């Protein structure tokens, strides 16, 4: 990595500008390093492709799968999975807001929500998949059900914390300006709870994403459509290990993208409003 600094000088960047971009470059450099290690390890030790394909091969499979010089099959699988998670996400957010909204208005409601959250949060919702199949059949609904069950509780928990930490003065402000219950929710409670909520959305998304991939692995196709988890498992069955790795790579990349999406959301909301340190 020593050459990078000289490269930077050669490119006409002064050292201070370099030290400014360096922190941003750290992550890409680490990723590149890991990828190089992977490639070198496979090539040097001649690891069989059926056990662990080289990165370059996986990359080719990925690009082909995305439609450059091949059938664009990965898009459909990926979209299938994403659409299930997104639908479940919307349902979970609405459900969490409604549940928490009711809970904050009564002591019983509060206790009920915290008890139910306490029961379901530690339960890996994938364990509910067999029951979901019993109730909804081998359908998209079953998947949505388990994904919702994985997301809604961490979301509700973070919202509860968010609502509990609204500055009392803002609550008084809301009463002073004659906000209705819904109005107070919309104008005071939800925005105040946003930092906590974004945390919950992040965690919720992570849980949901893991659950859906796991569910598809176990579950196979849902009706006619099948997702990326199914694709990964199928690749193993048909000994297309490189394709399977490409599928895994897609899962990882989507994780990266959503994480940076959350960071962008934070930059334009809570960081900008000084509600969270940047």
């Amino acid at each position: 990595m020593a050459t990078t600094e000289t490269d930077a000088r050669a490119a006409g960047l002064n050292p201070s500008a370099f030290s400014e971009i360096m922190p941003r470059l750290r992550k890409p450099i680490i990723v590149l390093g890991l990828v190089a290690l992977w490639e070198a390890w496979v090539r040097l030790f001649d690891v069989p492709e059926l056990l662990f394909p080289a990165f370059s091969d996986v990359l080719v499979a990925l690009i082909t799968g995305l439609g450059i010089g091949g059938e664009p099959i990965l898009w459909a699988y990926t979209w299938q999975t994403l659409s299930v998670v997104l639908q479940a996400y919307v349902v979970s957010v609405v459900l969490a807001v409604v549940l928490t909204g009711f809970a904050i208005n009564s002591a019983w409601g509060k206790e009920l929500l915290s008890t139910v959250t306490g029961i379901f949060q530690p339960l890996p919702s994938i364990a509910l998949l067999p029951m979901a199949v019993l109730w909804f059949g081998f359908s998209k609904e079953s998947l949505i059900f388990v994904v919702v069950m994985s997301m809604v509780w961490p979301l509700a928990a973070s919202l509860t914390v968010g609502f509990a930490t609204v500055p009392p003065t803002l609550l008084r402000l809301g009463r002073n300006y004659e906000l209705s219950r819904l109005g107070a929710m919309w104008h005071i409670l939800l925005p105040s709870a946003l930092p906590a909520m974004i945390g919950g959305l992040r965690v919720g998304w992570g849980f949901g994403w893991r659950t859906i991939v796991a569910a598809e692995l176990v579950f196979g196709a849902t009706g006619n459509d099948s997702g990326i988890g199914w694709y990964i498992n199928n690749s193993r069955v048909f000994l297309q290990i490189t394709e399977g790795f490409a599928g895994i790579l897609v899962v990882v990349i989507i994780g990266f993208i959503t994480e940076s999406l959350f960071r962008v959301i934070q930059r334009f909301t809570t960081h900008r409003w000084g509600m969270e340190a940047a």
Partner: protein
Amino acid sequence: MNDILAVRTSESPQRAASPGEANETLLSVRDATIQFPAPKGRKGAVVTAVKNVSIDIRRAEKFVILGPSGCGKSTLLTAMGGFIPLSGGAIELEGRPVRKPSMQTVMVFQDFFQLLPWKTVRANVEFALRQRWPRMPRGERRERAEHFVDLVGLSPQLNQYPHTLSGGQKQRCAIARAFSVSPEVLLMDEPFGALDAINRERMQGELNRIWEEGRPTIVFVTHDVTEAVHLGHRIMVMTEGPGQIRRLLDNPHVGMLPYDTQGQESVAELREMLIPAG
């Protein structure tokens, strides 16, 4: 900005004790008693924060409630705003009992958390205007918001978020917002209490200047004698223990300059009064 204030105050260092010959009562407090459950006592034990207070707030006056820390000033003021119930007595605004907070009695709080962090200075004011006059045309609302922001000298910060404002600027914004909705009564709970001495003095002058426009009715709570003499047409002195009225006096020195000797006498006199008897 401060020139205006300097000219005004030096032109008329002494003003009639109370404006408006009619002396029409706007807000009346009848024999108000306010009790809280004792922090950790036997069942039914209470702390009496305010005891048998009766006052008539006149239209278009600046009425100051002065008293030592913990004597029940905030409690009385929040009750006037309808935020907390009375244990005894009555509070009436234009003959109608005050039961819950409304935009007729708008509060300016002491702390810096009364602005909505996710709204700019302008949007904070417009939020209040939208609540007050939902059908007000956009353009008019913008104009009115700008006018009041300008009135408190915050025009340069019009589009800034609260976390980028100084403490004094935050209070100015809160004052602009409260004034903009033209409430019957403005309730101000030590709005300058968290400011440094110089800023506080400046804000007092500004408040006097802003009051001149439209002459709203203001009930102002403070424990600062100089502030009371600077601002109040009438000053009510409260005693410690259960908060009671010690004295109610007309203040001929409203708007006085810090070096006004006559004003200083009142200050000394009031200060004497605040020293606990015995």
